[in-house]
Structures are given as structure tokens and as C-alpha cells.
């Protein structure tokens, strides 16, 4: 009984000591400087990385549409235009068929919906679009339709979803496997 009483007294003394420390040890508020920066960016994604265009009997049939998604996060101070270009790398050899020869860009027609507006089907022999430096004579969008937006002079974020489909509208092509590259550009000036 005596031991228990002494133990209780000891516990009480220690608890009291702890309480007294708890009352004197304090930490003042500390400040940490925070900085963060967000750079301008543009993201472009395509729904496919290749396209098959019907030649032969199905010539004139449009390919499955390619969907291009564009997202931007820009600061103020730009010229303010978003320009688009769609083009082949060569006017005379848009597609190369090896021994089968080449298919010129003028044998292809583009049907596009850009910023919600469906453009008239356009043969891919248009002049260059200077703002995206597309290939002269192998461009599929008329210069008049290349400027999609012209109000990006202030800081803004935005997105566009556009679609592109190509058809072969040239003469019957010799049997061969044809390959080529189709470019889609988006430039914010």
C-alpha cells in the first residue's frame, strides 16, 4: 500500500513537471516563401498516326476523318492569330509508289471542319500559307481559311477540335504501294 502511494506521488510529480514544460516550450510561426511559374504551352494531338485512302474503284471516297485536338495556354503580347496548315511535303510526289510512280498532291482533295466551320472540299494544290510555311502547290487549305482565330492578344486558354478527311480524286493509279506524309500545323503568332 505504501509502495502504491509513493508511485502515485511520483507519477503526479512527473506529470506536473511535464505540464510545466508544455507551458514554456513554444514555436512561433515560420514563413516559407513560395514561388511558382507557369510557362506558355500548346498541345496538339491527332486521333491517328496513319491514314489509308481508297484508290482504284473507290477513288473519290473520303478517308476516315482525322481528329486534331489543340489546346493552348498563352500569355498576352502575341500578334494574336492561330493559323492552321494542312499539306503534303511535295507537290509532284505527295505519295511515292516506287516503280508505280508518284501521285501528285493535286490528285487529293481535303474536306475539313475547322473551328466548327465546314470548309468546301479543296484540292491540295493551294499556294503556300506564309504563317506556317506550308509547301507551295501542295497545301490543302486556302490561305483565306488559314487564320482560325485572331483574338489571342490577351492571356488565354482554349481548345479546338478539328477534323480532316482526304480523298484521292486523280486518274486511276498504277498498282503499287504508295506512301507519303501529310502535315498538320498549328501556330500561334
Amino acid at each position: 500500500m505504501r509502495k502504491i502511494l509513493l508511485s502515485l506521488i511520483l507519477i503526479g510529480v512527473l506529470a506536473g513537471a511535464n505540464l510545466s514544460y508544455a507551458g514554456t516550450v513554444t514555436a512561433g510561426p515560420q514563413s516559407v516563401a513560395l514561388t511558382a511559374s507557369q510557362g506558355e504551352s500548346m498541345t496538339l494531338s491527332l486521333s491517328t498516326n496513319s491514314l489509308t485512302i481508297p484508290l482504284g474503284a473507290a477513288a473519290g471516297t473520303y478517308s476516315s476523318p482525322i481528329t486534331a485536338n489543340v489546346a493552348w495556354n498563352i500569355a498576352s503580347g502575341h500578334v494574336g492569330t492561330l493559323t492552321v496548315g494542312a499539306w503534303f511535303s511535295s507537290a509532284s510526289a505527295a505519295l511515292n509508289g516506287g516503280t508505280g510512280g508518284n501521285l501528285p498532291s493535286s490528285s487529293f482533295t481535303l474536306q475539313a471542319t475547322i473551328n466548327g466551320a465546314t470548309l468546301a472540299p479543296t484540292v491540295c494544290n493551294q499556294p503556300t500559307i506564309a504563317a506556317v510555311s506550308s509547301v507551295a502547290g501542295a497545301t490543302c487549305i486556302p490561305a483565306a481559311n488559314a487564320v482560325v482565330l485572331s483574338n489571342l492578344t490577351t492571356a488565354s486558354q482554349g481548345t479546338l477540335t478539328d477534323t480532316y478527311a482526304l480523298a484521292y480524286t486523280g486518274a486511276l493509279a498504277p498498282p503499287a504501294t504508295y506512301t507519303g506524309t501529310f502535315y498538320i500545323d498549328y501556330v500561334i503568332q
Partner: protein
Amino acid sequence: MKTVIILILTLAALTTAATAQVTLSPLNAEFGKKAKGEFNLTNGTFAPLSVTFELQSVELSNGKFAMVDLKPTTHVKLSEYSARIPAKQTRTIAYTVTCDVMPCGVVILSTMATGHTNEGIAMATRMGTIAYVCDKQKGCRDWFLAQNK
């Protein structure tokens, strides 16, 4: 049920692999006489991305922006002129620009293609980052645009 979910996830991954998604940052930069900068390209897909770089000068004529052949008075060096960016990775490209005539503007065009196409048309995307170089860095872009109007 678990099998179905795994199958759906696999299909989603394969679908994603067939697309191209690229983020470019920053879109432009302004410099004083010593122009040393860099830009980042992020491959948002699950497939490697091949990138080639092309240099052009920029002009503003009657308020309209234009890319032209690189002027002989503008000299640009890139840390690399082509790159292969692994899936979901970011590559930083460094560059230096010196101009004999101030102000000058250069656009570094990144042309990107995903995968390989044996038959048909390969799709490529192109985006550009613009470097403005002036005697003084502050307000360089505004000065360039004003000088070229």
C-alpha cells in the same frame, strides 16, 4: 468481371498508342544580344516519338506574320537536330541565336511523327517556338513587332 476490365484497359492503351500527342513549351522567348534558350517537347503517347527540327526566320508584313527561309544574317545552333522521345517523356532542346542585324526573329519548328507507316499516309504534326533577339531583352518582342510592321 476482372478479365473484362483488364481487356478494356488494354484496348484503351492500344488506342492511345495509335495517336500522337505533343506539348510544346514555351511558345516564344525574348533575348538580348546573347540569346541562349531552351524549349521542351513532351510526348504524351505510349509510343516513341521521332522529331526533326527546322529553322526559319519570322517576319511581320502589314500586320501579317510569315515564316521565311532563315536569313543569312541569323545564326542558330541547336543542341540536337533530331530526337527520339520515349513514351511519356519530355526532351529539352537548347539553342543559341546570334543576329548580325537587330532585331531578328527565328522560329524553331518541331516536326513530329509517331510510329512507321508501311502503306498509306503517315500523319505528322508541326509546332514552333519563336525566339526574338534584340539589343536589349526587355520588351524585345514588342520592339520586333513594331519594327516589322
